[in-house]
């Protein structure tokens, strides 16, 4: 409820912002408001006309503007909630299957094909569970916290352009908006920890506060690098700027400082989302379950959904700003609806790849300690991201002209560098794996078995 309310209010303001952005000369033309178009289509459809005829009218009357806007926003909210839920449930399924794969077990495979409906079944189960509010809890905050957390995830989603012109919306300050709204979830988490009246939960909340405040700094600064390269804060416009070279001219290949910035962004996003190795707010071996210790049933599932939605969202922002958004080599060959569908698929697959990386990291690494997390954030990530910003700016100023007008060696420098770094890292890992497998065992030192003859 609160989530929908927050989102609908926000959508209206976003629409307004977009129009003012267009008036101020934004890089994109304002697309038509498709939710309003949908309402208009319904109004002039055959059924509506027939119904209006029964009432003795020529055509169904047009809704007042405020009502149309509210209904339009409601439709958008429904679509966002649906999309977020599906993405989050898929991510949960992915996490469990990948974890199973990593841990040499199977993972959920009973409900639906490949266990795809497992999350749905779990959701139904959580819905039907008893709703428990601890007796010592601050009831209002306790109830409000999961809604606030969920609202932030949903609102963030609305600003991500998934395909050219087919996003929920596209604001010209998209990056700023996302960084701002993502901090809202923190307030929800602190509320949850505080209101639970549980010391472990309080610990989780305090850790979350410290961690997110620290890591928003490198997160924001590393996001500045693609903003400097592209010259826009608008996610859709940034994606459009990466469509050169037949769809492979990503920001990653435009400036040598984008790759380190991307790595820093990814690490900071892990911390921002409370993912391992930074899952201190809910570290179950220390804090039982951290801030959601006292939550159960559907309220718990809100926290759970939010985590996966935020994971996807951070990956989506990374995709849009570093990995070329919806661009992929050869995608230009498609036309019309196919192009939109392909762009959507490319965007979701790229984001899911980053989600997969997060999952992979979670099931591989141990958890860091509180002070180590802080040291890493302030002593390493923040200065490094600042260096990236300075480096990227210097590179852009030195190059002086837009990317496609630069000399060919300068255009090729970054892709060669990126692939070179990847090749060197891969070779090092391979060497390490081979050396580890070749360690001696005790088998050769012992005489062959004598007991074989006994049986």
């Amino acid at each position, binding site marked *: 409820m609160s989530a929908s309310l927050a989102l609908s209010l926000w959508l209206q303001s976003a629409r307004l912002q977009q129009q003012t952005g267009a008036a101020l000369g934004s890089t994109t033309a304002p697309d038509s408001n498709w939710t309003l178009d949908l309402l208009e289509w319904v109004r002039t459809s055959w059924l509506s006309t027939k119904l209006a005829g029964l009432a003795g009218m020529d055509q169904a009357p047009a809704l007042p503007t405020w009502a149309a806007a509210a209904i339009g926003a409601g439709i958008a909210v429904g679509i966002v909630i649906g999309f977020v839920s599906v993405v989050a449930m898929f991510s949960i399924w992915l996490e469990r299957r990948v974890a199973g794969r990593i841990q040499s077990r199977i993972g959920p495979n009973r409900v639906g094909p490949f266990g795809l409906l497992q999350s749905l079944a779990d959701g139904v189960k959580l819905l039907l569970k008893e709703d428990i509010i601890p007796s010592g809890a601050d009831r209002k905050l306790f109830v409000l916290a999961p809604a606030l957390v969920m609202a932030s995830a949903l609102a963030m989603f609305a600003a991500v352009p998934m395909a050219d012109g087919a996003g929920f919306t596209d604001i010209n300050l998209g990056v700023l908006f996302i960084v701002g709204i993502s901090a809202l979830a923190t307030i929800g988490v602190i509320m949850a920890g505080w209101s639970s009246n549980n010391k472990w939960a309080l610990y989780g909340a*305090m850790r979350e506060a410290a961690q997110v405040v620290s890591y928003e700094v490198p997160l924001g600064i590393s996001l500045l690098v693609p903003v400097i390269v592209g010259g826009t804060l608008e996610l859709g416009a940034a994606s459009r700027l990466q469509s050169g070279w037949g769809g492979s001219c990503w920001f990653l290949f435009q400036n040598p400082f984008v790759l380190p910035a991307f790595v820093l962004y990814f690490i900071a996003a892990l911390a921002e989302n409370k993912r391992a190795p930074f899952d201190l707010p809910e570290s179950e071996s220390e804090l039982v379950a951290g801030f959601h210790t006292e939550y159960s049933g559907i309220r718990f599932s809100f926290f759970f959904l939010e985590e996966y939605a935020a994971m996807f969202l951070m990956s989506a922002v990374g995709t849009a700003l570093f990995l070329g958004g919806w661009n992929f080599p050869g995608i230009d060959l498609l036309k019309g609806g196919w192009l939109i569908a392909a762009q959507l698929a490319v965007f979701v697959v790229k984001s899911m790849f980053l989600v997969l990386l997060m999952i992979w990291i979670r099931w591989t*690494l141990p958890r860091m300690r*509180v002070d180590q997390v802080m040291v890493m954030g302030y002593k390493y990530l923040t200065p490094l991201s600042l260096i990236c910003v300075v480096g990227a700016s210097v590179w852009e100023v030195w190059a002086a002209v837009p990317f496609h007008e630069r000399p060919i060696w300068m255009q090729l420098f970054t892709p060669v560098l990126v692939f070179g770094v990847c090749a060197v890292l891969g070779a090092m890992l391979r060497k390490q794996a081979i050396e580890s497998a070749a360690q001696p065992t*005790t*088998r050769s030192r012992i005489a062959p078995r*004598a007991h074989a003859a006994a049986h």
Partner: protein
Amino acid sequence: MASSHPQTTSHSGGTAHSGSAAALPFRPAGSGEYDEDGNLKPKFGRPLAEGEREIVMDVRTQDMEMNMGPQHPSTHGVLRVLLRVDGEVVTQAVPYIGYIHRCAEKIGESVEWIQYLPYTDRYDYLAAMNNNLGYSMAVEKLLGVEIPQRAMYIRTICAELNRIGSHLIAFGTYGLDLGAFTPFFYSFREREWILSIFEKICGARLTYSFIRIGGVFNDAPPGWLEEVEAFCDDFEEKWKEYNDLLSDNLIFVRRTADIGVISKEDALAYGLTGPCLRGSGVKYDLRKDQPYELYSKLEFNVPVGEGKKGQLGDCWDRYDVRMQEMRESVRIIRQCLAGIQEGPVLAKLAAALKVPAGHAYVGIENPRGELGHFVISGGDKKAIRLRVRGPSFCNLSILPKMLPGTMLADSVALIGSIDIVLGEVDR
């Protein structure tokens, strides 16, 4: 609640000093000095110049009491540790035990010699074979009975397999304590095979009662020894995976090296045994120092902590000793498999066993340290007194000394590195 420096004294126009104890990341509360009015005394008090003011910033935090356990994921059972915490730093820790006390020693006085064997399974349920062995050897010492050679080989194989199984749990749950989930599943994959090997020889997977007074319950079924060998081959390959995954992981090393350092002197003073003692650099292993059964004939090393990643006797050293011991156990098993011969597996003893009067103490090297059984017999069917010296119980005693000054996350790492089994602490 804030875990900031409790006191900061600054001179206007001068540098701000924050007092910090040498080793700790934060200074525990209450370490500053206060005057009679309860105000913090300036740390770097010097005569003030004319017009100079000293501002004392005093953020006093309140300590919080937390019950870690008896239901807590990282206390490895029903241990309850009452923690006094100042922010993230533990200032005091008092372990409370006894939640699953079952009067095992008293039961030992009221059941017959052979009937007590199943009770031994239940003290350190992760190393039941070793418990069986310890009790059987104590009774055998009073009986003066000779154990058949084949039985000794099977006993040694089972005890060492059980040691691997127990260390696997220590390894897996230690990863879990530090937030790494995958090692746990890897270790259980191998442990599962060990349990099925045990199931094939005695029908039980956890509480075996297989090694008994006079030998072992039955002979190895056909193919069993081959399977043990196949397990050894497989395990040594899998063991490398564990190191790749956890031992040398930078985060893991940072979480364990230099954390919970137990000095050699402390380890000896608190009566630690097993990997906890050897992790502190003391080369003491009953299999080498008071060889029993076949161990004097077998070749194996006793791994000790070397302070490879940090100080000698830190959590990483204790962890590493367990990892190395698993390999040594494989070596021992291979030698037993090479030397085992046909023959009987159980000495002939009366059904209603009467043990000659006297007393005997036998200590054996359990996975967690020295498991001692002290039995007094009056020449009857039952013991007069049966006393158990449990390694986990003694190792646990160092917790109140080690925990204060560590951070909350480190305290979990410390408890995990001591590797207690509450079934044996409480008995």
